């Protein structure tokens, strides 16, 4: 007699797998909002970077919505779409690695060589990827409470609430720079493309499409992740005056949550920085895994070689960045908005009839 899983149980498992995927996308969106905001938003509009980052919320929500349509078979040019997702997620992984290396090298390990920091970060990510496509998402899902709560609690505990002086002037360097920064922040929606890829464990499950949750299932999670990223950028503004932010010349130091008015360096600040680094690393890991899955969809013959190929390409590009300067990654990162917009165009079209 065939071993039949009741349909309700199967649907619950499918939904659980999609929940893990949605949480992974949310964590990655939050991390990329923060890294992009600190890398591009703060130099452009100083203390108003968090306002510009608000543009990432609707961008991420819309991208999640369109990605969900792709999940259920809508849109045209499936191969082109997957190739685009593969390239974008690979670039996202590289950006996240660069952000991690900057943060760790300029705050936690200033005496270490930057190449060492890059190697350790990449090896950590490589180990996580080697556990299989389900290991890292499950780890992220397990941290879905600890990570955002830890980040929020520790960053708020560093603040001085005597005055909200750091938020003013509200528009920062001006409306024009604010608008430009908001355009750049669209790139922070790139991690939401993960939702367009079905969870690997559901690849051969025929009921997958019927049991796919509705759009709101993904959208609210992704927007919550983006909102946390915006919140952390707001904390950066509260920690300092606009003059203090302008004096910070390096990407990594800008990401450090350190309140000028109430300085206390210690275990709390170290743990906070480690949680930030972990979030960025998770973004890199999911980017790599997602890119490998997307390229496998483009060329099924690649098989497991897709992950190896993505790791190799990422390693080479990261080495090039370390040699040339990781700051290049933050300057080029806003271009990630282009594939996000292209993806939107490719998603338009009639839903495929079953």
């Amino acid at each position, binding site marked *: 007699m065939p071993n039949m899983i009741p349909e309700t149980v199967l649907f619950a498992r499918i939904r659980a797998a999609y929940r893990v995927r949605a949480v992974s996308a949310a964590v990655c969106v939050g991390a990329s909002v923060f890294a992009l905001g600190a890398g591009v938003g703060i130099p452009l509009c*100083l203390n108003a970077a968090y306002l510009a980052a608000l543009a990432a919320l609707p961008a991420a929500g819309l991208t999640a919505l369109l990605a969900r349509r792709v999940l259920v078979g809508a849109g045209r040019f499936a191969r082109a779409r997957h190739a685009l997702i593969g390239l974008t997620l690979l670039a996202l992984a590289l950006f996240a690695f660069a952000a991690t290396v900057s943060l760790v090298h300029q705050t936690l*390990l*200033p*005496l*270490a*060589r930057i190449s*060492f920091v890059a*190697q*350790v970060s990449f*090896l950590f990510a*490589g*180990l996580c990827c*080697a*556990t*299989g496509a389900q290991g890292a998402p499950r780890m992220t899902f397990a941290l879905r409470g600890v990570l955002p709560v830890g980040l929020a609690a520790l960053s708020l505990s560093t603040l001085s609430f*005597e*005055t909200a*002086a750091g938020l*003013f*002037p*509200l*528009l*920062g*360097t*001006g*409306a024009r720079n604010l608008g430009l920064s908001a355009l750049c922040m669209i790139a922070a929606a790139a991690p939401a493309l993960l939702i367009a890829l079905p969870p690997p464990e559901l690849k051969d499950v025929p009921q997958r499409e019927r049991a796919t949750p509705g759009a709101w299932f993904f959208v609210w999670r992704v927007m919550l992740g983006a909102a946390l990223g915006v919140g952390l950028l707001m904390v950066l503004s509260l920690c*300092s*005056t*606009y*003059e*203090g932010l302008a*004096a910070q010349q390096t990407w990594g130091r800008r990401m450090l949550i*350190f309140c*000028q*008015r*109430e*300085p*206390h*360096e210690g275990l709390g600040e170290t743990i906070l920085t480690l949680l930030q680094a972990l979030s960025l690393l998770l973004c890199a890991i999911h980017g790599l895994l997602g890119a490998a899955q997307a390229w496998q969809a483009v060329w099924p013959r690649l098989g497991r070689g897709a992950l190896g190929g993505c790791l190799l390409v990422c390693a080479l590009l990261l080495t090039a960045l370390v040699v040339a300067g990781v700051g290049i990654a933050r300057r080029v990162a806003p271009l990630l908005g282009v594939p996000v917009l292209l993806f939107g165009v490719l998603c338009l079209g009639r839903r495929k009839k079953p």
Partner: protein
Amino acid sequence: MKRLLCAALLLSLLGLLSGCGGGQEIEGRLFVIAMAVDPAQDGNLTMTVKALSGTQGTAASQGEEASGDGGSMESTEPGYVTLSATAGSALKALDLLSATTPRSVDLSQLREIVINRTLAETDATLTILREIHALYEANGAAVVVVTPDDAGDFIRRQYALFGVRLSQYLEVLFEHFAELGTIPSGAMLSTVIGAMESGTIDAAAVYAAGNAFDATLVMDGESPTDRLPGHLPRTSPAMNEYLGSAIFSGPRMVGTLTGDETAMLRLISGRALITTLTIDEALYQVSTRSSIRRNLTYEGEQAVLGVQIHIRMSLVGGTQRSTEAELAQRLEQSAQALMLRLQAASCDAVGYGQLAVRQYPDIPSWEQSNWEQTYRQAQVRVTVDVDIQ
């Protein structure tokens, strides 16, 4: 295959994580506890540091001087060593210290930075503090002190009067005076740098001086802490006195406040930690329901700097000799005098600029608003209400 890959990655991690990450032995660093900056000849700076020597005895070969630009090393107490170097900038002086001692300078345990008053009255202070904080990763919570004495001598004669650890002694010292309110809040390195860079608030550092114990002048009828340090009628094994504030306008020191004026500044700024007040030999407990409000209003073109102080307190010792109205009037006069003094010195240590900036939408319009002049010409309005229960 997967296990083989994991094993290979783990093995390579072992190689990378085994001490190749720029780790440092504690004995490999020169941990500086106190630092002093003095002006030297020809526009140079003399940097003096007091650091942990890690030994119980005094250092050998005292008074030995290095050749060249003047690095010198002394020892004043067991466990600590004092070194100095003279160079064109703070950074070069620290580099010279690193080059002339067999240890790298580490400012992560810094508790105090003492700056000579002559230097503090120039624009160089901000550059010096920035270099120390950003380039040498100094502890952002180190307290900035200004002294009219030789700053190097100030830290040479400083030692742990209580306990054995100078670092702990200094921490407790600053906490204690902060609770009394006789030193300013926000005198920490990163806060002072932020205030000096900011156009919305000005910095206030601790003011300190050494006492030769040859002054016996007692000011009758005045509060004992309504003075500056250096000539207080007292004796003690410790010469250094910390009392009052050095106030800045931008990066430049523009004046001093006595201990009582500093306490009033903390009260107006909402940063007073005091829970008791002694007035006319009566002791009052200050209630947590006391409130201080600052506001900035405009009457036509002129700004009005307003402070509303509402103090609730209860008599816990002695006899009340003044009525509530008299106490209120006295506090009002003190607050008004302080505000006018700060205004005349162009020092916005209270932070009215932080209220003014809210009216401007962006940074360019704020920077064109000429707030400094508006602040100097503003009217001051202080109201105090005392409620003794």
